[in-house]
């Protein structure tokens, strides 16, 4: 078979399927779809801000009501944690690559960089998401010490929640981010290799 035949066969394929677009409705359609996405993003952002505000307000209010230096320190840490989480999450979102008009190789490299950053964020979840509220809670519990049993129960509950969050993030790294980065690496490798 001649090489040119490939092109001839290909060109004929145009007749197999035809795309029809109702022009008058098309732009309205697109506009509605974009508004819908935009609304969902705003809704998700608002949810995150509200959650962070609740955490910060709860701990912040507690700071003025509870006595004892350790309890106050724990509550202050909790209040700051709410702000830290929202800064980290918003910062991560800003780095999402959305310039699809880049050359394929450049886009793949950028997308990979973004995924690696996201993966690292989850890998380091212990430092920015788990430890601050955990230390805050432990300090608060020590400050409000009323007995060994209550103390052990409180610490066990807090630790249990944090261990669960840790493994949840670890699973996301293993199941989502590692395979995705591997796929992008393979695509970049395929692009750069001539077998």
């Amino acid at each position, binding site marked *: *078979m001649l*090489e040119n*035949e*490939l*092109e001839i*066969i*290909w*060109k*004929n*394929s*145009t*007749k*197999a*399927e*035809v*795309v*029809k*677009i*109702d*022009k008058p*409705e*098309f*732009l*309205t*359609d*697109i506009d509605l*779809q*974009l508004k*819908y*996405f935009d609304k969902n993003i705003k809704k998700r952002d608002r949810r995150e801000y509200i959650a962070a505000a609740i955490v910060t307000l709860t701990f912040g209010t507690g700071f003025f009501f509870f006595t004892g230096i350790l309890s106050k320190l724990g509550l202050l840490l909790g209040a700051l944690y709410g702000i830290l989480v929202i800064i980290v999450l918003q910062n991560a979102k800003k780095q999402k690559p*959305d*310039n*699809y*008009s*880049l*050359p*394929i*190789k*450049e*886009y*793949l490299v950028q*997308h990979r960089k973004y995924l690696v950053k996201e993966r690292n964020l989850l890998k380091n979840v212990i430092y920015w998401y788990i430890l601050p509220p955990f230390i805050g809670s432990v300090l608060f519990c020590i400050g409000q010490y009323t007995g060994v049993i209550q103390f052990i129960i409180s610490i066990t509950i807090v630790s249990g929640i944090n261990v669960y969050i840790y493994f949840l993030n670890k699973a996301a790294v293993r199941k*989502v981010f590692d*395979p*995705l980065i591997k*796929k*992008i690496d*393979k*695509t970049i490798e*395929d*692009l*750069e290799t*001539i*077998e």
Partner: protein
Amino acid sequence: MEKDLETFFLTTIEVNKDRIFRFCRYYSTDAEDAKDLFQEVLLNLWKSLPSFKYQSNIDTWVYRITINICLRAKQYSDMKQKRFVKLESIHIEKIEDSNFPDENEKLFSKLSECIKMLEGVDKSIILLHLEGLPYKEIAQISGLTENYIAVKIKRIKNKLLTGLKSLNNVGK
């Protein structure tokens, strides 16, 4: 200004829609998936249009966006993420017309089968070549050099021809 942009967009889509759809078809599992992917590409073309520099070639720009979206969709395909783009104004119609001879149809389906078996980026490069793009433009789309593209296309074509021959032998 907005009106100009809309007119430019509609013209660009009208000229490129079949080509874009062909790419989507090869990066999808079925016709419905291809339609969803096609809609996603159109949506992103519209979103990206304000950043288009009119000095560059619009077709190159369209191809870049199409391929980047298709590759991304392929990479995320295992995550079973549902695409939510639903544009009711788009219809894909299959032509059962006799203008498409049986022999061509057979060859085309064999060629399609071979292309589908290619790795992600090889698929894009050969599709661009089959669409009749010169090496220079394929290089601009992919971010590789022209010489590199020439060698790569030669190798991919050989793979396709070998695949077609073996399919022909099986068919006999």
